[in-house]
């Protein structure tokens, strides 16, 4: 076994032990290269988003010398050329729609109308193809037309190309630097699938009052698909969790009654469905989930990694600790406004409070954006090693 392979094995074991709520040799640290990298590399965000090779080579240059365990990915979440090929209305990307150094923006709309519910529920995948794709893509406005057919060919090709390029990059990072990817597969709470992309935030909240039974039926119809999306295909790697950014379940979006009846049951069913196949979820609880910790504790032991953003960390530890791995501990703003010294101090305290008996992964609370300072991000990793040995 090469040195890097051994390093990989060690980190993998650390990660897996923590996920299983155990105590590894040291606290595993998660790290991602965010948009902040642009300002240190003399590249525009547009270049980073558009040129996958460039963004991957920036990551490759960054990795040597950094000692962390779990890699959360490079600076761009999406590859805009695929969206351009389809004429996607969903986002404005740096350099096209917004300035070359602005982060992307989501264009939230009711891409699904209230009257579409029945058809969607009857056959979700077919509805997406027949109505949703044409609604969100200017190139598909006339299904069957020359432009539309070409766009689909390009879009699907881009999807495959990106998948290939990224798999290759991860393979290389594993070989060269011994890092472990955080997860495989991407899914959502069924209510968020409905509320984010299909009905939009306002649409879904109004639906809760005007057509609650449709919301429930749609969430139910989405659930098996979201289990599938999380698994990322048959025979996929179940050692690693699927990523699930959770939105409308945060306090104070839904009242307790709505949360209990509309948000939670289908999310729980999704998690249980995944867990039945041995797949965990990285429960990326954006914002504050403190009021719901008791409900979350009803999940099967170890079936999630709970991400702490602005949820009360001590309460999360108290209620979920021991049964579920916790991830987080570093407030996102600290990475911008803090100093390396402040960060070290914070991490020492966090590790004392949250990591003591294992089952903990150190990470930034939320999404780290362009404002973070590199010296702070690096101080975070260093401090984790300094104070994180069990």
């Amino acid at each position, binding site marked *: 076994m090469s040195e890097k392979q051994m390093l990989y094995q060690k980190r993998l074991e650390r990660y897996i032990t923590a996920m299983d709520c155990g105590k590894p040799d040291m606290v595993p640290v998660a790290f991602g290269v965010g948009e902040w990298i642009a300002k240190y590399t003399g590249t525009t965000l547009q270049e980073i988003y558009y040129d996958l090779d460039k963004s991957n080579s920036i990551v490759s240059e960054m990795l040597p010398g950094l000692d962390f365990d779990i890699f959360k990915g490079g600076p761009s979440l999406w590859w805009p050329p695929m969206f351009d090929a389809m004429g996607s209305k969903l986002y404005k990307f740096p350099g096209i729609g917004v300035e070359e150094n602005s982060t992307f923006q989501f264009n939230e709309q009711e891409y699904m109308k209230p009257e579409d519910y029945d058809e969607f529920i*009857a056959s979700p995948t077919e509805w997406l193809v027949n109505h949703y*794709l044409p609604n969100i893509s200017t190139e598909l406005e006339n299904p069957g037309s020359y432009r539309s057919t070409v766009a689909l060919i390009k879009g699907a090709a881009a999807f495959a190309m990106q998948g290939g390029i990224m798999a290759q990059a991860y393979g290389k990072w594993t070989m060269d630097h011994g890092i472990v990817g955080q997860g495989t597969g991407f899914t959502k709470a069924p209510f968020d699938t409905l509320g984010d*992309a299909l009905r939009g935030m306002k649409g879904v909240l109004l639906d809760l009052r005007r057509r609650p039974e449709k919301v429930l039926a749609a969430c139910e119809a989405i659930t098996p698909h979201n289990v599938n999306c999380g698994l*990322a295909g048959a025979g996929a790697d179940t050692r690693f969790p699927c990523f699930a950014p959770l939105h409308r379940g945060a306090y104070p979006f839904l009242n307790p009654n709505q949360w209990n009846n509309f948000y939670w049951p289908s999310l729980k069913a999704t998690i249980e469905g995944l867990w039945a196949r041995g797949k965990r979820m990285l429960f990326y609880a954006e914002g504050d989930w403190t009021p719901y910790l008791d409900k979350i504790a009803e999940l099967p032991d170890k079936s999630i990694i709970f991400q702490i953003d602005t949820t009360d960390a001590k309460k999360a530890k108290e209620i979920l600790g021991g049964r579920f791995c916790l991830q987080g501990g570093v407030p996102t703003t600290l990475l911008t406004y803090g100093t390396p010294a402040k960060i070290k101090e914070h991490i020492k305290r966090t590790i004392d409070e949250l990591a003591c008996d294992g089952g903990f992964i150190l990470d930034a609370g939320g999404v780290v954006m362009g404002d973070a300072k590199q010296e702070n991000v690096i101080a975070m990793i260093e401090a984790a090693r300094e104070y994180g040995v069990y």
Partner: protein
Amino acid sequence: MADKEKLLNPDPGVCVPWEVKLEEIGEFPGNEAIVKKEWEKLDDFAYNFIWFWAQR
């Protein structure tokens, strides 16, 4: 359009079920399993592409 296409309501991971395709092919002189396996792989790819847009 003549009569509306019948809904397939495919399962997760499926766009056009192999069973539907098989029926259309009718006679099958070769090894079905080989064809089915590759059909389903590509079908799963298409499925992931479609749902990608809904899970943004």
